[in-house]
């Protein structure tokens, strides 16, 4: 999120835009990451239960991720344009669920929407928060093609390091002592 962790409202939906999947990109992705015949070749796929070429579910997911990165980038620029300092997104620790619900075929347009469903400060990384996000991908007929529950890191704006941590950092800056502390821990 380009908003600071503290400013994010739970249950607000963010439209991420749409992508139309073409046959050549479906095949190109599948060749590299998911070479199963119904993702690779229209003639072969016609004999599968899909009755035609379908995109790898993972392809539809990484395009969704790309739409999210682009939306965050655009929002970041907008905020900078207004003279505001945008929030900082970090890497993701994981994905709780990903359900592929309907196949995506060449020419299908998929629209992606992100909803923050929960947030809390990280226990493992001081200064960062965790965002729990839902991502819904819907085709031009209104059918859900996938639903995902994702987790992402977001930097805290109002974080102040605990005294213990600041003391420890100050100590490690004293020449010689830092090494000694590192060896002991």
């Amino acid at each position, binding site marked *: 999120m380009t908003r600071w962790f503290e400013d994010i409202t739970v249950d607000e939906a963010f439209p991420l835009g749409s992508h139309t999947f073409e046959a050549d990109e479906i095949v190109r992705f599948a060749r590299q990451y998911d070479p199963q015949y119904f993702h690779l070749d229209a003639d072969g796929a016609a004999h599968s239960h899909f009755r035609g070429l379908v995109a790898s579910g993972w392809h539809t997911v990484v395009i969704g991720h790309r739409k999210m990165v682009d939306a965050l980038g655009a929002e970041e620029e907008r905020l900078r344009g207004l003279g505001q300092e945008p929030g900082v997104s970090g890497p993701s620790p994981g994905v709780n*669920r990903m359900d592929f619900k309907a196949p995506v075929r060449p020419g299908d347009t998929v629209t992606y929407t992100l909803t923050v469903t929960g947030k809390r400060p990280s226990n493992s990384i001081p200064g960062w928060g965790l965002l729990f996000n839902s991502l819904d991908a819907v085709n031009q007929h209104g059918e859900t093609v996938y639903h995902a529950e994702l987790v992402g890191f977001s930097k805290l704006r109002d974080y102040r390091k605990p005294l213990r941590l600041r003391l420890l950092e100050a100590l490690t800056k004293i020449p010689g002592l830092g090494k000694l502390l590192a060896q002991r821990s």
Partner: protein
Amino acid sequence: MGERIEFAAITVTKEMIIEFATEFDPFPFHLDEDAARKSLLGGLASSGWQTAGLSLRMVTDAFLSRVASAGGLGFSDLKWKRPVMKGDTISGSATIAELRRSRSHPQWGIVLVDFDVRNQKGQPVMSMRLANLVETRDPQAGTMQTPMQPYDVEHGGGAG
């Protein structure tokens, strides 16, 4: 059930990281060494989705291409445990965690596969549970109490 499939190893180069990130994950920390050093990742590392994609490729080569796979249903509990840094070699294994006939489509079986992906130091980098449909040898046998194993795979063979 419990069967383990070993993956062939893949070395992740800087060029691969930047190529994937440019197309699918253009966060500065996947594209630029300086930005990467200043990020939580601590250096140029692959997109988690690239690690997942490469893992999918490894399981497709080692397993799904040898069974009558009928497509993926999704996955759960995907955890990116450690960044895959440029030059790292990833490998790992998949274990068949569950195998059952689909309730809604008894002509198919559902196989759950647990991934354990590790780097060259043996440290875990990613885990997840993949759910995949497989065709069954005997589609009429949907009412059987214990389904036949609807897949046929060699033991322990890497993709080579």
